[in-house]
């Protein structure tokens, strides 16, 4: 034991440093002041946010870009409650973050003191676990266990609420004694009998499809997935958060499944006789109507979270294990699957529906979002880390930006949090300073958290912002067009002049209205140091196709209306 007396605040930072933390995102306030005062004595970079929601999204973006635990700090009361959206976002997308909040003095708890709120009670259902720390002796055990919980198993957010007196009072730091307690046995290796059964199903399948989700990246199994696919030749469909788990250019990567997945992907799933689900959770945006979902298919489901097995879709073989371990256990026993006819069938589906309205959209003076994303992909050579917001632009990004590497698409999937992109992009840039980071946002979501532009400027973090500006809350407008007889209730949206806004922050910006101007603007933005805003004034009432209406059968897609003729060539 280090006999030296330290304050709880000092112990907090000492533990964070020992856990490998170098950057935190936060906002000071009364109840967290002792911690901020102590922070100056530790090798920690603090990024001052403009709203605590931004701090959580930044920690989230940081975690998703790097695989490390992101850390957000806030004060009690409103500082803590402002974090709720970001914590829920991280929970739904299994993102490892640790949130540290100040709390009023332990004697004042329960008295409705100034800026007191029950943040551990509030975040109970949206954290993996949380702590209320009222003594300096409990700081180190809470921090160590919090980091352990956040990054192991199915990752997720953990919150530590520390009273002001626990930060101020002193004790000796007992690092070894604070090691995380073993509450349950460690994860065992994959069950051999279940793996054997899965391999039998794979060998016998005529029309198999692999469904790859976020777990491929969270479980660090991208390499193993590629080996699995090379060995078997199985076709792979990916979830939104699974994008990047297998290179988009991989010949067996079909693309994204689900509500806005390509028609051939969803059709292949519906016609398949075996689904091999790896680190995904059969979300309703992925399955459509569960009663008619892949009716002829047997299902193998591999997930680290036992509660996901059989939750939405009954499975024939459910394996609760680390995906990497499962793929490695399968690897020596795999043989090439004899599925030439099935692959030919998928190619036929592809040809018939084939891509991509993209080159068929008339370049008639209008600017289409699909073109913007496509040209952005071209101009960045597919190498950018793209962080999207939520809505139409998110789906267009997923459809038209080809991600070759893991962790190169960062997006709020499960919770669908508007306002996520800009702060998460800032977090990603802190994690990966050498990466080219683009925030692709809609005009709605951008206006939710655009205050964080000042954070990027103050911290000199270069994030390129592409606003897909259609003057509507586009996805909601699309639903109103399709399902509410075109009554646009509260979806027309006014934006400020983003070029002038950028000027106010001392940033470069440009408004783009024609396709010819897209690539030169993106290239100019790439050459410019610092944050740049590109305001793409796209076609206002364009919709995302194809679309499976909520609750409809997966193969019942709304297709892009004629007269646009779809062809197979890639632009």
């Amino acid at each position, binding site marked *: 034991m280090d006999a030296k007396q330290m304050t709880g605040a000092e112990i907090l930072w000492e533990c964070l440093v020992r856990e490998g933390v170098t950057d935190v995102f936060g906002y000071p306030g009364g109840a967290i002041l002792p911690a901020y005062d102590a922070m100056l004595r530790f090798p920690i970079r603090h990024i001052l946010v403009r709203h605590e929601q931004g701090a959580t999204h930044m920690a989230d973006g940081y975690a998703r870009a790097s695989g490390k635990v992101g850390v957000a700090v806030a004060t009690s009361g409103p500082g803590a409650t402002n974090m709720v959206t970001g914590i829920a976002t991280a929970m739904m997308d299994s993102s490892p973050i640790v949130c540290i909040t100040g709390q009023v003095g332990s004697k004042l708890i329960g008295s409705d003191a100034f800026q007191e709120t029950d943040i*551990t009670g509030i975040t109970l259902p949206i954290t993996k676990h949380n702590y209320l720390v009222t003594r300096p002796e409990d700081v180190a055990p809470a921090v160590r*266990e919090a980091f352990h919980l956040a990054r192991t198993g199915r990752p997720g957010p953990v919150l530590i609420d520390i009273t002001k007196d626990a930060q101020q009072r002193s004790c000796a730091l007992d690092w070894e004694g604070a090691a995380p307690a073993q*509450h*349950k*046995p460690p994860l065992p290796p994959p069950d051999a009998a279940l793996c054997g059964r899965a391999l039998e199903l794979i060998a016998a399948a005529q029309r198999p499809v692999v469904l790859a989700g976020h777990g491929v990246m969270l479980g660090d199994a991208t390499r193993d997935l590629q080996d699995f696919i090379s060995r078997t030749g199985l076709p792979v469909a990916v979830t939104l958060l699974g994008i990047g788990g297998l290179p988009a250019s991989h010949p067996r990567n079909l693309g994204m499944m689900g509500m806005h997945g390509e028609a051939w992907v969803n059709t292949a799933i519906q016609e398949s006789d075996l689904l091999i689900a790896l680190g995904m959770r059969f979300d309703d945006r992925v399955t459509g109507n569960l009663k008619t979902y892949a009716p002829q298919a047997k299902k193998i489901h591999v997930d680290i979270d036992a*509660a996901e097995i059989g939750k939405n879709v009954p499975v024939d073989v459910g394996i609760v294990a680390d995906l990497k371990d499962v793929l490695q256990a399968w690897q020596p026993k795999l043989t090439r699957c004899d599925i030439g006819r099935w692959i030919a069938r998928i190619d036929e589906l592809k040809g018939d529906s084939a891509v991509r309205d993209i080159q068929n959209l008339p370049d008639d003076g209008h600017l289409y979002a699909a073109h913007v994303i496509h040209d952005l992909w071209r101009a960045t050579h597919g190498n950018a880390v793209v962080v999207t917001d939520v809505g139409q632009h998110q789906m267009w990004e997923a459809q038209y930006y080809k991600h070759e590497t893991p962790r190169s698409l960062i997006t709020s999937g499960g919770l669908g949090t508007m306002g996520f992109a800009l702060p998460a992009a800032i977090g990603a840039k802190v994690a990966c300073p050498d990466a080219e980071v683009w925030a692709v946002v809609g005009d709605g979501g951008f206006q939710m958290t655009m205050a964080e532009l000042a954070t990027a400027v103050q911290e000199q973090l270069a994030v390129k912002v592409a606003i897909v500006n259609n003057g509507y809350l586009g996805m909601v407008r699309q639903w109103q067009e399709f399902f509410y007889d075109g009554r646009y209730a509260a979806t027309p949206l006014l934006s400020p002049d983003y070029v002038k806004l950028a000027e106010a922050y001392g940033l470069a910006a440009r408004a783009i209205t024609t396709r010819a101007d897209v690539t030169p603007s993106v290239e100019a933005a790439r050459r410019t140091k610092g944050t740049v805003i590109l305001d793409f004034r796209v076609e206002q009432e364009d919709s995302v196709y194809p679309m499976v209406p909520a609750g409809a059968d997966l193969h019942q897609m709304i297709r892009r209306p004629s007269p646009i003729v779809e062809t197979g060539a890639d632009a």
Partner: protein
Amino acid sequence: MQTTFVVHVEDRPGVLNRVASLVRRRGFNIESVTVGRTEMTGMSRMTLVVDADEAARPRLKAHLYKLVHVRRVCDLTDVPAVTRDLAMIKVAADPSSRAEIMQLVDVFRARVVDVAPESLVIEITGTEEKVDGLLDMLRPYGILETARTGRVTMARGAVARQNGVRQPRQPWTGAADDANVAWSV
């Protein structure tokens, strides 16, 4: 359908809240919950009765295991088990009805624990059906107050087997070869 879980939890502040919040959050309804200390320091035992169908049972169990302080969850729904409910019933009783009520108490093997000029307090331990039966019989005399603990359940026998595997009933205490407890996620 009523599902009975016995949940061993670490005795930490808020652990009951975490279990109750989880059940609510996942859309189930708690029919009854009892908590008490066990013979092991720092370990509490809950009998949790939840309305959950066949398909939801393993999922709820898996969710319970995700709580850090949950050490073991046993589903006793289909296991031979002893279940008890304790009730105290205050019933109106004047000298004219007291003897009759005392006879009923004898028949139900209950006990009178307090006698007052105009009331009796009766203590009964048994299955819920038995307690309900006594309540039905006492109702005509005028029930003034009832207090029930909710169900406490314990599996019969020293150990049980499920699918041929020995099923321990004690909280997980660190045995590496204990295959019957789920791991942390």
